[in-house]
C-alpha cells in the first residue's frame, strides 16, 4: 500500500503496462514532447521512445481511427483524447467503428483499444470544455465505459482496460487528478462492470461515479456524525452497469438518490432510477431522486459555474428530504 495521486496512479499504470507488454503504445495530442496536457504521460517518451509514445496532429478522428486499425491488427493502443469534449470529433470512429467492428465482422476481430480522456467542469474552462458526456458513449453497445473515482480504482481499472479485448472509454476527471489515496502495490485488476460499495450504510443509498462518488463519500461521512447511515455505491463502470449491486443496496435501505455530474435529462441517474424500479420496486419507500448538473451549457463565471454543478449541499438537502418524507428516525 502506498499513497498516490490519481495522476500518479495513471502514470505508473501506463508505464507498468508498457513495460509488461510490448504491444501497448500511447497515441494522442501533446502526450510526448509536452508530456501531456495533464502530465499523465510525463517521462514516457524519454523512456519508451517515439515508436511507443506517438504525438499526433490535432485530428481526433484521424488518430482514433489509426488506433482502431492498430488494435484490429494486434496492438494495444492507449489513446489520450485531451478532454472528453474533443471526443465528439471522433464519435463516428468510436461509436460506429470501434464499438461495432467485433459484432459486424462476426467476431473475427476485436478492438482492444483504450481511450483515456478527462471530463468534468469546475475549472472555468467554458461551456464547450467542461462537459460530462460519458453517457453518450455508455449508450452504445460494444463499448465499455469506466469512470474511476479513486487512485486505486484508476490503477486497477486502467490495468483491466488495457488488458481487455474490447474498446474501453476510460473517463478521468480534471478535478480528481490531484486527489490522493491508498493504492495497493500488488498488480491486481478491478473487474470492469463491478460497482464498489464505497461505504456501507443502512438508511439511504447514494449512487454516484467519478467526482460525484468522492462527494457522496464525503457527505456520507458528514451525515454519519449525525447518526445517519448512508451507503455509497460507486458505479466505477457505466457499461457494463452493475445493476445488481445497486438494487441489492436499495433492497437494504429502501431509499435512493443518484448524484451525477451530467445533466439530469436522459442522464446516468435516469438509467439508475429505471434500474432500481425494475430490480427493487417493492423495496422502495420513496421515489428515487436525482441530483445532477443544471440543464444549461456550463457558465464560465465562477459563481454561476459553482451554482450549476451539483455539490455536497445539494445532495444533503435531497437526502434530508427523502428521510423526512419517509419519517426517518435515527
Amino acid at each position, binding site marked *: 500500500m502506498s499513497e498516490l495521486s490519481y495522476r500518479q496512479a495513471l502514470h505508473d499504470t501506463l508505464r507498468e503496462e508498457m513495460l509488461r507488454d510490448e504491444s501497448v503504445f500511447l497515441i494522442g495530442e501533446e502526450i510526448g514532447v509536452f508530456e501531456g496536457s495533464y502530465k499523465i504521460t510525463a517521462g514516457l517518451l524519454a523512456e519508451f521512445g517515439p515508436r511507443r509514445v506517438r504525438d499526433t496532429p490535432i485530428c481526433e478522428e484521424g488518430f482514433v481511427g489509426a488506433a482502431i486499425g492498430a488494435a484490429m491488427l494486434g496492438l494495444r493502443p492507449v489513446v489520450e483524447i485531451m478532454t472528453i469534449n474533443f471526443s465528439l470529433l471522433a464519435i463516428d470512429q468510436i461509436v460506429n467503428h470501434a464499438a461495432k467492428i467485433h459484432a459486424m465482422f462476426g467476431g473475427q476481430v476485436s478492438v482492444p483499444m483504450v481511450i483515456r480522456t478527462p471530463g468534468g467542469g469546475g475549472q472555468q474552462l467554458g461551456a464547450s470544455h467542461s462537459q460530462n458526456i460519458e453517457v453518450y458513449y455508455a449508450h452504445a453497445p460494444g463499448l465499455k465505459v469506466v469512470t474511476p473515482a479513486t487512485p486505486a480504482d484508476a490503477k486497477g481499472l486502467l490495468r483491466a482496460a488495457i488488458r481487455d479485448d474490447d474498446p474501453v472509454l476510460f473517463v478521468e476527471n480534471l478535478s480528481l487528478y490531484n486527489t490522493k489515496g491508498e493504492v495497493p502495490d500488488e498488480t491486481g485488476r478491478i473487474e470492469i462492470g463491478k460497482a464498489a460499495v464505497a461505504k456501507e450504510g443502512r438508511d439511504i443509498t447514494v449512487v454516484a461515479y467519478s467526482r460525484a462518488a468522492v462527494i457522496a463519500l464525503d457527505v456520507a461521512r458528514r451525515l454519519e456524525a449525525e447518526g445517519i447511515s448512508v451507503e455509497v455505491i460507486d458505479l466505477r463502470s457505466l457499461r457494463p452497469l452493475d445493476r445488481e449491486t445497486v438494487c441489492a443496496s436499495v433492497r437494504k435501505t429502501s431509499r435512493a438518490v443518484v448524484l451525477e455530474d451530467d445533466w439530469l435529462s436522459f442522464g446516468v441517474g435516469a438509467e439508475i432510477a429505471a434500474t432500481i424500479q425494475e430490480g427493487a420496486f*417493492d423495496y422502495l419507500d*420513496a421515489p428515487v431522486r*436525482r*441530483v*445532477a448538473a443544471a440543464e444549461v451549457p456550463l457558465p464560465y463565471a465562477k459563481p454561476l459555474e459553482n451554482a450549476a454543478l451539483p455539490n455536497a449541499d445539494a445532495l444533503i438537502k435531497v437526502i434530508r428530504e427523502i428521510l423526512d418524507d*419517509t419519517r426517518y428516525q*435515527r
Partner: protein
Amino acid sequence: MADIIMPRLSDTMEEGTIARWLKQPGDQVSRGEVIAEIDTDKATMDLEAYEDGVLERILVGEGSTAPIGQAIASLAGPGGTPAPAATVAQAPASAPAPAVSAPSAAPENPAASLGTSDRPVAPTSSPLSSPLARSLARRHGLEIANIVGSGPGGRIVRADVEAAIGDGRAAVAAMATPGPLATPSSGAERAGDDVEIVPLGNLRRRTAERLSISAQVPHFSLTSVVDAERLVAFRGEVNRGLDDSTKKISVTDLLVKACATVLRGNPEINSSWDGDKLLRYRRINIGLAVAVPDGLAVPVVHDADRKSVREISAESRALAERARQGKLSLNDIGGGTFTISNLGMFGIDQFTAVLNPPQAAILAVGAARSEPIVRDGAVVAGTTMKLTLSVDHRVLDGATAATFLAELCATLENPLRIVV
C-alpha cells in the same frame, strides 16, 4: 442526552400526533414545562418535560404521528450544546411542493435551478403508498387502505405500516372493513368535480376505527317505550323557579342518575368482555356521547350512582363544553363502564346505538313525545319516550338485559326513585 418519548396519554391510545411544538431546538426547558401539544385518539394533551435541559432535536414534526414509546425529540442536559437541528422531520404539509400533476422531473425553466429532480408531489385525491409499504402490508396481511399515511401528500410509507403492525390495528380494521370499501382506488376514481375528498382528522379516524371494532361484536338490541309523563313533569318541577337556566337539569341528567341507580342493582350490565373472562366494574361511570366537530366524544360522569342529579347536571354540562372545545382531559374520558346516547333533542324517536367497546351495553334515547297511550284501560294523551339498549351478547343474554331495561323504565316512570 435523553430521548423524549411519545407517552401513553390515554388507556386506549396507540399513537399520538404532534399538534404543536411549543419549544424549538435550542430552547431551554425546565421540568414540568409544557413543550408540546399532542393529539391522542381522545383529546389534545399537553406534554410536559420530565427533566431540565435544552431541547436538542425534534424527531417528529408537527402533524406527524408516532407510536407510544417512540422518541419524538431529544433533550440535552442543562447547558448542553444543542446539535444543529437540521433533520427535523417536517410535517407533510410543509414540504416544498411544486404543484405538478405528473412526476415530470424536468423543470419548466431548466436554467432556473440546479438539475435536481423534483421532490415528487403526491396528488391529494388518491391514497398513496410506497411500494415498500404495500409489500410490507401484504406480507403481514394488512389492508393498506386502512393505514393512514404520513408521507408527502399522505403517502403511506414503511414507518406507517410498521406502526400498524406494531399495534395490530390495521389487521383488526382489515377484518372489519367490507371489501368494496377497502378498495384504495375507489376514492381516486370518484374524485372530481362531483366529489370532494375530505382528509381524515385524528378523531374521525379513531371514531371510525373504534366503531369498526365494535361492529365485530355479536350484539342485539331491545326497545321499550317509557311512559315519560311523570318524568317530564318531575323535571319541570325541579327546574321551576330556577332563574339561572345554566343550572336547569335535563332529561339526560335524570337518565344518567336513573341508569346509575339501576346499574347498581344489575351489576352484570356494568361489565365488559375481556377475551377469556368478564370484567365486572365496581364503579359506575356513565359516558355521554357528544357530537363534536370532527367526530364523537364520550366524556364520562364518574361514580354517577354516588352523585346527586344536580352534581351530575353541572358535571355533564362542563364535560360537554370541554368536548366541543377539544379540551377533554384524560380523566374526563377514561374509565367509562356504560354509555348513554341521547338524540331526543334532534327529534329522533328511536335508534340503535353502536356499542362503545369494551363496554357491554349502551342506551339509545329517543325524544319524549306526546302520544296517545292506554292508561287504566282508556286511550289518553300521554308522553312517551323510546329506549333502546344495545348489548354485547358475549357478556349478556336477553333476559338479563330485559330485566335491566324493565327496571330502568319503571324507575323513569316513577321518577322519585331516581333521587331516593
